[in-house]
Each structure stands twice: as C-alpha cells, then as structure tokens.
C-alpha cells in the first residue's frame, strides 16, 4: 500500500496515523513523522508553499517507489500540503510500516531526506511586511549523499 497525497487542506495527523496503522497486516512497526511550520523568532505571519502540479505527485511516487525497493515495507504514506499555512500548522507527514522497526525508521528517514530536496516544493516565509523564499540548505543536499 502506497499513498501519496498533495493537498491544500489541513490533515488530521492522529486520524491519518491510526488509519494507516489499521490498514497494515503482519507488520510489527509503524513509524510516523510530521513536519510543522516553525516560527523561530516569533515574527512569522504565514508561510506560502508553492508546488509544481503534476510533477509533484510523480516525484513523490518515485521517492516512495525507491523506498519500497530498498526496504521491506508493508506500506508507506506521504502527505504534503501546499498553499498558505500559519505558525505551528502541520506541513507534511510520512508513515512507514514494516515487519521490523529498522526498515520502518530508515525508510521514513529516506523519504524525509528525499522530499526535502527532490520534491518540487518551495517555501516563502512572510514576516510583517517582508516576504522571503526559504533557501535550500547544504545540509539537506548532503543528507542525500548518505543514501547513494
């Protein structure tokens, strides 16, 4: 079971995690992660996430496919939002299920690392009157090298 969703609307992390776990059979481990809009200095008014419709779904599906090829997974879930978000809103979540926890943890890390730098999303932070595109970080690109 592989689920990829790109959506404007908020999602219910608890309900999504429960539904994902309920759908698994014979799996000993479910790992979940969710990313949340940070407001490091209390000035963020909103974050706007732009994406590339069509390519986004393809890129996320390809990343999930690669995870399933590398690890023994019963299922995977990727939800990523676009549009306008506020501080402390959930941006995205991933979930992985496997017979043993190591596969689930590693696959979740892999999904996170790849969608940071290989899925066509761009974040713009608005603080007061200013708006600035979030720059890609070298650390995120370096994280991919560990999976090559």
């Amino acid at each position, binding site marked *: 079971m592989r689920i990829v969703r790109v959506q404007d609307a908020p999602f219910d992390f608890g309900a999504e995690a429960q539904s994902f776990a309920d759908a698994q059979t014979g799996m000993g481990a479910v790992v979940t992660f969710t990313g949340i809009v940070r407001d490091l200095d209390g000035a963020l008014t909103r974050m706007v996430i732009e994406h590339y419709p069509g390519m986004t779904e393809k890129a996320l599906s390809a990343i999930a496919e690669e995870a399933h090829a590398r690890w023994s997974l019963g299922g995977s879930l990727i939800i990523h939002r676009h549009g306008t978000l506020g501080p402390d809103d959930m941006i995205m979540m991933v979930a992985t299920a496997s017979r043993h926890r190591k596969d689930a943890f590693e696959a979740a890390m892999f999904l996170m690392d790849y969608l*940071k730098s290989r*899925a066509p999303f761009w974040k713009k932070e608005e603080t007061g009157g200013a708006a600035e595109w979030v720059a*890609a970080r070298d650390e995120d690109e370096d994280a991919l090298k560990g999976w090559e």
Partner: protein
Amino acid sequence: MNIMYFAWVRERIGAPSEEVETGAATVTDLVEELRGRGARHEAAFADLSALRVAVDQELADFDAPLSGAREVAFFPPMTGG
C-alpha cells in the same frame, strides 16, 4: 514548447509560464534564447548554479537534450518537508 517558472524565478520573469517556439537542442541553448527576451529573463537566468531544471516533469541537467520535449520548468533548489 511550454516553459514554466516557479518561486523567485516566476517572480523575476513576471509570469508562471509562456509558450515559445524554439529549435534549441539542449536546455542550455534554450536558456540562451530565453535570455534574449529581455531584462526580466536576464535577471532570472543570471546565475544558473542557483537554478534547477525539469524536462517533461523529470529533473534534468542543463546539457539535457530537448528533442521531443513539451514542457521545461525552471526553479530554485527545492525546499519541501
């Protein structure tokens, strides 16, 4: 060919996409043609190391061939997650 722009590239160009007639053999050739369209395009393509490109919705290199391509997108490094 449909050319698409995202994030600050879109803002510099001033449009999310444009149709161009081109015989460019590679992405780099296409960039050279687009630069000739004016100051906005010059600004958007001033530093290619700050750009990424997708050909028909697959990440590609700037020396990628364009024969048969229908859609080329330019954007800054991605920041998902």
